[in-house]
Each structure stands twice: as C-alpha cells, then as structure tokens.
C-alpha cells in the first residue's frame, strides 16, 4: 500500500481535512450548550482528528505513538497515585529518553515527530510531578500531546498555557475577523513553505550533492540558500500552526520571531524555536544549576544544553559539532557581555546613536554569518562534506552557475514573464530568477515584519483578502508538480 502523508502542504490537508475539522469544531462549539458536554465533544473531535492526521504516516509510526501514549499514561497514573512518585518520575523520563534514543541511534527507522511528542511527554510528566498540573485528565492529556497543528514540529509549549489557551477557544464564538486574520497568516505560511523554502531547497539539494564541483559563488550561495530554506520552512510551519489556532480562537505559543535579526547567539535562541529554548531552560539548564553556581558552572551548563540540543536535532557528528559551535559561541557571548557590563558601569551613557545603529547592523550580519556557517554542519552528510563546502568558498574560483543550480528558481509563472521581455537579450536574464528570490528573501527575513504580528495588527480589508486569495492559490496549485526523473541507463 502506498503511504500518503498528511502534511500541511498537501491537497488532502488543505482542501479536505482542515475545512472539515474546522466546520465540525465550529458546529460543536456553537450548538452544544452544556459546558461539560461541549468540552468533552471538542476534546474527542481533536483527539480523533489528530489520530486520523497522524495515521496517514503509516502503521509503524502510529504504533510507536500509541506505545508512547500507553506507557506514559500508565506512568502518569502511577505518579498521581503511588507513594513512590519520584521513582515513577524517573521511570517516566527514562522511558521517554530511551524510546527517543533507541529510534535515533538504532537505525531501525525514525518515527515521524517522535522528538516533539517525546519532549511533550517529558514536560507533562515533570510538570505533573511538580504539581504544576493539578490533576491528570486523559482527554486533556491526549489533546495536549496529539493536537495536530503542533504534533509534527511543535511548538513545545507547556501543558498549562496550552490547556488554558485551548479551553478559552472552546468558549469562544465564531469570529470572522479572527478567521480572516488566520487565513491571511495561513496563506503566508504556505507561501513561505511551498514557494520560497521548496524553491531554495532545489538549489541546496544540488549544492550539497556536487560540493567538489562548486564555484565560489555557488558554494557561498548554497550555504546562504540553506539558511533561507530552513528559515522559511520552519517559519512557514509555525505560521500555519498558529493560523489554525487563530481561526479556532486561541493563541499558540510563539515559536519563531524573526530570528535572523538577532544581534547575538543568545538573542537568536530567544527568537528561533523559542519553545525548545524554553524547554531546555526549564528542564535541563535550571536543574543543572543554571547561573546560580558561578560563571564557570554557568558556562558548562550552557555547553551541556547545546550539546543535548545538537543530539536532539539529529544523530551523527555533524549535529554534535553544530550544537557545540552554538554552545561555545553562547559561552563567548556571555563572557563578552559580562565584561562589557562591568565596563559599562564606568562608561555609561556615552554611546552615540549612529554608532549604535551601525554596531547593531554589524552584529546582526556577523551573527547571521555564524548561524549560516553552522547550518552547513546541520545539513551536510559528513564533516568532510561540510569542510569541503567551506573550501569551495575559498578556492572554487569564478564559475558561472551550473544549470541545475539556477534552474529551480525559474518558476514558470515568473520565467514566462521574463522571457517575453527585452531582459532576455542580456546574459544575466538566465540567473535573474535566482537573484530575485535572493532579494525577496533578504527583504522578508531582515526587513520584513514578523508575519504573526503583522496578521494580528494589520487592517483586514479587500486588499488583504485579495492577498490571501493570491497567496493561497499560488501555493495550492504548486503542491503537486509533475514527476520527472533523469534516466539515462536502466
């Protein structure tokens, strides 16, 4: 049997699953008057819908998810009832860590979203033990773990705030303004994923598969494009998840806040995958002692957190190097900040505004270059591949773009327009789409307003309605290409 995935950027999800789910949600919310019955019905709807959503990833994945749920429910139940609460807490954490590690390192297969739902399980178990969750309620717990908009890639929100948010949504009435704002955000998220991230992905795919042949500019742009691909992919996902919740009537935890505008590594981690940073801070960094045991211990704790983060993101040396690089940079940043703080006390209020602005721009650029360079290790198959890409940046020399590198940017809808203009008389026309995408990405990433904030604050009118329609249509008709393969031999 062919396994059909149910990702956000599929026809099945956008044209069938999501509309049916939302209509059912609004109908139950509007017509069931009794509060207890309404909550129960909405919980059941979300649990069923989420199971259906996840089951499209196949029997193996669903089986692992079910095992995780069953074992955790038993452990959580024991934490609530047993006198040996701490023992059951340790058992709970150990089970989840072992389950995740087993699939990460066994090479068997890697269940979809296991990193995310396992961390949510750990979060729930610890919060229950600590008394932050008042009582164990199976439907609420299942909604928290399974809620499909956040199941695949987070956010890793704690149970308390998530539960409060979704319960608020249960009491809301259908709000057409929120619906339109949500749809605008949904269209932006899809656009980022389908048109931007997936287009950059084609060049990145080529770049990382042909490292020894890359020219200097191709090598540099491969790294830059990968940083853009990751940005738009994750940002797009977060936008769509947030948009669905917005339409339902509540705010999902913010997970992405223009991260490449960060001025240093710590600022970056306060903007990129914010809830993961929150998770590590709450459940790893603070229990290790945080910054309460002196500077050296603080630095060691930071390094430990980033190493765990690297291992969580993927198996292999490249991810450890990536985590370690971020950890070391974070420690260095903290050292410099601490030194400056001491200095600043003596020389306060002497900063000139222009100088501060220039310094901020340089900090953003410098930080971005560091992030971009470390993403190379995140993407490369091996450490030598990653180093190879840097080497090509230095010794690749001036070479025109290989056709495969630039081809992916020539989307028909743009390329056909260029082809009928006099621009085609110039050689640069062939690479124009690539530069247009690069420019658009730079503007959106470094100068654009955060999409979620924009959609919350903008005035909804006919213009935004047209924009929503345009972006949705463009994205949806781009979901399915026509399969082509380069076959020369059999």
């Amino acid at each position, binding site marked *: 049997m062919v396994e059909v995935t149910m990702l956000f950027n599929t*026809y099945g999800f956008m044209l069938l699953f999501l509309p049916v789910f939302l209509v059912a949600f609004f109908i139950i919310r509007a017509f069931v008057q009794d509060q207890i019955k309404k909550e129960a019905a909405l919980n059941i709807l979300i649990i069923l819908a989420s199971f259906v959503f996840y089951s499209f990833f196949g029997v193996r994945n669903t089986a692992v998810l079910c095992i995780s749920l069953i074992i955790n429910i038993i452990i959580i139940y024991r934490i609530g009832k047993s006198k040996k609460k701490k023992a059951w807490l340790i058992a709970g954490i150990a089970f989840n860590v072992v389950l995740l590690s087993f699939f990460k390192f066994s090479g068997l297969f890697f269940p979809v979203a296991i990193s995310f739902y396992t961390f949510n399980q750990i979060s729930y178990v610890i919060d229950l033990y600590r008394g932050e969750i008042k009582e164990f309620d199976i439907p609420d717990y299942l909604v928290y773990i399974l809620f499909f908009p956040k199941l695949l890639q987070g956010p890793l929100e704690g149970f308390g705030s998530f539960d409060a948010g979704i319960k608020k949504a249960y009491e809301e009435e259908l709000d057409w303004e929120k619906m*339109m704002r949500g749809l605008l955000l949904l269209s932006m998220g899809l656009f980022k994923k389908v048109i931007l991230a997936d287009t950059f992905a084609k060049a990145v795919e080529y770049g990382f598969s042909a490292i020894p042949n890359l020219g200097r500019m191709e090598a540099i742009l491969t790294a830059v494009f990968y940083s853009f691909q990751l940005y738009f992919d994750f940002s797009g996902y977060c936008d769509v998840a947030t948009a669905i919740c917005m339409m339902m009537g509540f705010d999902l935890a913010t997970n992405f806040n223009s991260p490449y505008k960060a001025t240093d590594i710590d600022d970056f981690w306060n903007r990129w995958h914010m809830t993961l940073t929150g998770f590590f801070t709450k459940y790893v960094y603070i229990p290790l002692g945080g910054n309460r045991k002196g500077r050296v211990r603080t630095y060691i704790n930071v390094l430990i957190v980033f190493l765990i983060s690297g291992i969580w993101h993927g198996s292999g040396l490249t991810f450890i190097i990536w985590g370690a690089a971020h950890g070391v940079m974070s420690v260095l940043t903290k050292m410099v900040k601490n030194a400056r703080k001491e200095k600043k006390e003596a020389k306060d209020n002497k900063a000139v505004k222009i100088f501060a602005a220039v310094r901020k721009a340089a900090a953003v650029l410098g930080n971005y270059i560091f992030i971009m360079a470390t993403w190379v290790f995140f993407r490369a198959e091996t450490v030598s591949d990653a180093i190879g890409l840097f080497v090509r940046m230095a010794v690749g020399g001036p070479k025109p773009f290989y056709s495969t590198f630039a081809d992916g940017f020539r989307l*028909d809808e743009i390329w056909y327009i260029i082809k009928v203009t006099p621009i085609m008389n110039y050689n640069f026309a062939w690479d124009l789409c690539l530069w247009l995408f690069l420019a658009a990405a730079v503007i959106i990433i470094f100068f654009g307003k955060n999409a979620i904030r924009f959609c919350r604050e903008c005035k909804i009118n006919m213009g935004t309605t047209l924009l929503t329609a345009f972006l949705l249509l463009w994205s949806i008709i781009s979901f399915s*290409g*026509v399969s082509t393969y380069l*076959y020369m031999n*059999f």
Partner: protein
Amino acid sequence: MNRYKKYFVVLMSMMLAAFIACGALVVYVDPFFHYHEALTGFPYIVDNQLSQNPGMAKNMLYDSCIIGSSMTVNFDTDDFAELLGANTVKLSYSGAYPRDHYNILSIVFDENTYARKHSPVKNVYLALDIPTLTADPETTKYPLPEYLYDRNPINDVKYLINKDVLFQYIFRPAVQREGSDMSEIYFSWWTPEYYNIQWVMHNYEQPEENPEEMTKDGLIEGTEVNLSRNIIPFIEEHPETDFYIFFPPYSILYWNNVKKENTFEATMEQYRYVADRLMQYDNVRLFDFQTMDEVIDLNNYADYSHYKPAINKFMVECFKDGNYEINSAEEMEAELTKVRKMVGAYDFEGLFSEKW
C-alpha cells in the same frame, strides 16, 4: 452582513471560482489524456512517460504498442506503420522494471477503455531486458503518480489543480503552437555525434570484479517470478494478440560487465530459460538481437547499452522479415554459442589499454 464575514465569502468565492476554472481547463484540454482522447488541433507536448503513458494507453486510438525500457524510446512509430501496417503507440518507460510492463499492459488490455472499445490489440512489441528480470516483481523503477493510474476520482485533484500541468502542458504549447511529433516521442537526448567509441569509453566505468562466480541457476528464480507475474499472464489471456518480444542488442561492454560481475554462465542460462518459457506460446514471436555484428562496434552506441536509432529501424525490419527470430530451443542455443564465441574472441584488454 458583518464586513469580515463578507470578506470571507468573497475569499471563498474567489478560491472556488479559480479552482473550478483551473480544473475545467485541465479536463477540457486533458494534456495527459486522462479523461478523453486528444482534442483536434491542440499541440500536445508528450514528454513525460510516467504521467502520460497511462492516459495514452487508455484514450488514444491504436492497434499496437511498444512496451519496454529506454531500449525502445528511439523507435519511430512511422516505421511500424510503413513496414508492418501497425498503428502503434509508444509506451516506453526508461529504466523499466517488469512491474512497469505489467502496469501499462494492464491498461492496454483493459476492455473498458476508449482505446479498446475502438480497436483490439493486434501487436505488442516488447523489449525484454535480461538484467531487470530479477528485479522485485512488485516494484516499479520510479514512484508512479498514482492519481493517473488508479480509478479514484478524489486524488485527481493533483492533476486538476496543478501548476506544472497548467503552465508546461497547456499554456506553453498553446502559446508556442508547437506540439510533439507523436511518432518520435520520448526520443533520447543523444544527438548523432554522441554515438562514438570515444564518448562511450570516456564515460564507461567497469564494475568491480566479483571473485565469486554465481551459480548457473542463480538468476532463474527471480526471472521465473517476474515472467509468471508480470509478463506471461497477458500472453496467456490474449491469444488474439501477437507479442513480438526481443532481447535488445547491448554492446560488447555489457558482456564485460557480466564477466566482471562473474555472472556469465548464469546470464546465459537466464537467456535460455526466458526463451524456453516464451516459445511455449503460439502468439509469441521471439527475437534475439544480441548477436548482431553492430554489437562489437562501439561507434553504434552512446553508452554500454544504448544503441543508435538506425538499429531501432533495423529491428522493425526484422519484425517484418523474421531476421534474428528464434523459433526453437536449438536456435536459441546456437545464438548463445555465438555470443560465447563473440565475447571470448573480443579483445577487451586492447580496448581498455587505450586512453579514451
């Protein structure tokens, strides 16, 4: 009405209208022939085997078809019309596995299609690639766009609301007014200058030498399963159809690969077995082109296996006059002996000692 609700209604109306317009256009033109025969006068571009073969098999008018891997892409269907009087459609899948043959033959012989309602299948011209006959019998070479192969109308949305279909297969040909020449669809990209020994040898990589020789019947089990599941059912169920099945003429380098992989005797046995199985059927005409003189001249090839289009034309002539046809086990044995001699006599050392 609440103004936000009004915007919502406007948005949904626009989306619905756009989807309907897009879908209606695709259904009307139907560039993959999924719903109906080709429109008269529309310059269809046919260049995607995975997406367009099933539609062509269903909705084109033909009485013969070409099935096979890239060994068949350089056939000119005009030659079949001229020499054999066959109205032929080319349904090649480059790199095809036996399961690919099965999938497309299932559509070709489906009595409910427009094509079959108009004409029975007189001839099937099938290239049988010995190396792929041990492939997994359920696996296709490439993932298929299922929505064009199944009967589920829901997943047709992937075809109906599809930017590539709109732009590359409807707008582009409509503007350029230049469609594909149906007799030459899927022709390989190699232009005549690529067919020379320098190009072949420059790109040829010898496989690693396998020290362990495969047993003589090492390839039979997989071959038997593929023949029984993916090929022979069609031959048995359609005695009214003539199956022209042929072993394509790979170059002498193919035999070098076989020797390096230490499967020479197993491959010979595989040829023998396939021939024996197929010759049991009266509606099969079997051809073995592996002993053509052209095989040892690499100037006829663009790589170790792909021959120039003139050889395709020659094979059509053979289908007509019976050259290289195998009619008995003895004849097949004689062909295999010729191969053995040809491979034994070829100066591989001399070939590889030169710098290309």
